[in-house]
């Protein structure tokens, strides 16, 4: 089984570290970016199977990031999961409207995180 590659985008080092731990334990290869712009830069050179992104970020927020990813030629079918503490519908809806595939609510439970990823990745 080829390793799945996940790009995690969050301005919080804590969240990045926890995602990294959880995902790499589960056998994923984890790439990291600290804001949307860095995330786009990573996607320019790297191929990933799924993206997990925060919404509230400096430089380029998650909504913009998702819009930009979707606007890029070969990323229309890249699953993007929105990572958010907001349980309120509006952030999630904004993320979805921008092209988000699904969402993960922080604080995340590792098992649930993995299961949500498998829900959107082959």
């Amino acid at each position: 089984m080829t390793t799945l590659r996940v790009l995690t985008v969050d301005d919080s080092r804590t969240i990045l570290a926890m995602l990294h731990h959880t995902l790499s334990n589960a056998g994923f290869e984890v790439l990291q970016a600290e804001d949307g712009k860095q995330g786009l830069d990573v996607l320019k050179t790297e191929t990933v199977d799924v993206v997990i992104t925060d919404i509230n970020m400096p430089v380029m927020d998650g909504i913009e990031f998702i819009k930009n990813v979707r606007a890029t030629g070969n990323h229309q079918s890249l699953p993007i999961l929105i990572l958010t503490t907001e349980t309120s519908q509006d952030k999630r809806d904004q993320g979805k409207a921008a092209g988000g595939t699904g969402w993960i609510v922080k604080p995340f439970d590792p098992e649930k995180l993995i299961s949500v990823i498998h829900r959107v990745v082959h």
Partner: protein
Amino acid sequence: MSDLDDFKATYFDECSELLTELEEQFAAIEAGERDADRLNAVFRAIHSIKGGAGAFGFSALVGFAHAYETLLDYVRDGRIEMSDDVVALCIRANDIVADHVKAAQTGEPLPADYGMDEKERFDALARGDAAPGDDEGGDPLEEFDIEFTPVMVNLDAPQAAAAGEAPVDDAFEASPMQVEPGHWEVRFTPHRALYARANDPLLLFRELAALGEMHVRAVLEDIPPLADFEPFAVYCSWEITLISPALTEAMIREVFEFVEGDCDIAVVQLGGAAVGFDIPPAAEPAAAKPSAKAMLAANQEPDPADLLALADDEVASLLDFDVAAPAAPQPAFAPEPEAAPVSAQDSFEQAPGLSFAELAETIQPSPVARPAAPAATPLRAATPTAPSEGEESGGNRSNGVQSIRVDLDKVDRVVNMVGELVITQSMLTQQMDETLRARYTELVRGLEVLAQTTRGLQDSVMAIRAQPVKSVFSRMPRLVRELATKTGKKIKLETIGENTEIDKTVIEQLSDPLTHMIRNSADHGIETPDKRLARGKSETGTIRLSAEQAGGNILIIVEDDGAGINRERVLQVARDKGVVAPDVNPTEEQIDQLIFAPGFSTAEALSDISGRGVGMDVVLSNIKKIGGSVHVRSWTGKGTRMTLRLPLTLAVLDVMLVKVGESPYVVPLSSIVETIQCSRASFERVPSGGQVLQVRGEYVQVIDLARRFEMVTETDPENRFVVLCEAEGSAKVALIVDDIIGQQQVVIKSLEENFERVDGIAGGTILGDGNVALIVDVQGLKTTIVHKNAA
């Protein structure tokens, strides 16, 4: 558990950065900059603190941060005005957040009602300004209780989920069970948006299949002939039957959670009748239908519906292909959509000999081919299939991290080794005399390259340790705010040059001295508003904190527009305390410097702030420790300026090597303005008996280093050199040396640590040939000369 501790350490690290950021933002917000960017930055910081706190179960912190965040959110969207009161409340809230973070870090709990008043005020604000009936107008605290029940994370759990079977969402267990055996029918019609968001019906089927026995029928009636295909349109829908005794509608809807709104879903429970879903012939193995090959062989234009209803094994291979290429563009959203169906058709006509695999590849971009695939294959407990792509070698995978955190010790080790390398390199260069140079030209070239590389290496290493002084400056606005409140004065802090970079080791030593200096300015310098008004000044006093690079030094200046140093009182106190002998009459400048004398404090009543007698002398000793100097200048009634002169780095110094008598001395290159041969310099005597040098119409004090350091010199005065240096505040001083040897870099060694402090000497260094050279303290020489002359 140790992983969790690591994360906690990261989290607290991050919190401390975020809290600093909050201080910075609020300093600007307080100054009236209340734009959206700042509010967003504040919101993000609190949001991040809350996010991490939630992960670790710091519920008190989460609770407070959430209430605060709600307030900020209201401010952000304009429901609450960012009035001065709200700003003050936020600043207080930042402190409370900081205390909560600290409590979480140390494990010492705060009182249960800590921050409750503020929380209530957030709440009142939120209620007061939110429109009645507003969906978010509820009690934010209650909202928190519901939304943010902290979840303790078991970090070792996920392997099991990742290992194999399609995971069952634990939300299923939580949802109410209608334990009623039954058959469910789901009608699923995706919209374009579903594909646009990278959702994939196949994955939904996979998840549904995990719920029970599943039959799927693809509804293909709406598919037009290939030529009429509209690339962005979605033509396919599905009818799904699920059979499982424990199945509920909620469980089915849960699968479609992410695609809600992007598709039509009808979920109907069949009246318990155990009738299997009637799978129509279209999806059945269709032996009667012509195979793709047969169609192509007949050069017949295939009907897409026929293609989709191909024999099982062929469809399976289509499915395989499909699964194997998840990264291929979704049909409806191919970058050049119009190309897809046309080229597919063309290929059919022009290439009758296509194998099925090739055909599959060709038709893959059409919107129906892919979703249709699972239609014919009843799925059950599908296992996640790995993509076959991404098989590139793992060697060159960068992971997008723009920075790494390195233990400072490691950097220090590199810095020290580079320092030694610099010495070795200059030693090697010195060993090359003229004969050797002539004989070994290659070696000379190599040494030149080595010199260059060493230099570059050194710059790079020092850049790693350099940090903007912002990190220290940003703590000061708050200090000034507190001081203003405590003293009842009105004080404004201006900061300039906070992006000036300086070695991290220097920065770390800067915080205490700077705090003392600013306290001193606020406490003793700035007058009360009444006094200021009486003196015709503005009510608000200003403290200006600035940083700038001047050659190899960083100047940090704390300046106030207060009363200036009360010299009479300073001198009197100094005499009383025996700091100054009764028969000595110090100059004004010397009196000013007395405030740095150990044990000196002028405050009549020890104030709560700076007058504990352990103030300014600490500044001096701290600054000296890091190779810096402090200079104070005061103007009665107008203000005081304290200047910290700090080395840019503590490691390596660019110097000019000179000779005084027979001994080598080094003068920091950064302070040298020019060198002049004595025979060409115009000296003039002054009435006091001293000598001055006239340089371009300016008179400069002359210091003969040989005389100053009591060295014997036999050099003809005409052959000696003047090294014109610039000291504090661009005051110049002319040093007379016997010879100029050259320019080089040296590693500074402290004289105090290895020997003892010597006036006029800033330190020592070991030269390439192993000899020790002393570093001339230009500023120190200048100051002592001024005092001698004046006294």
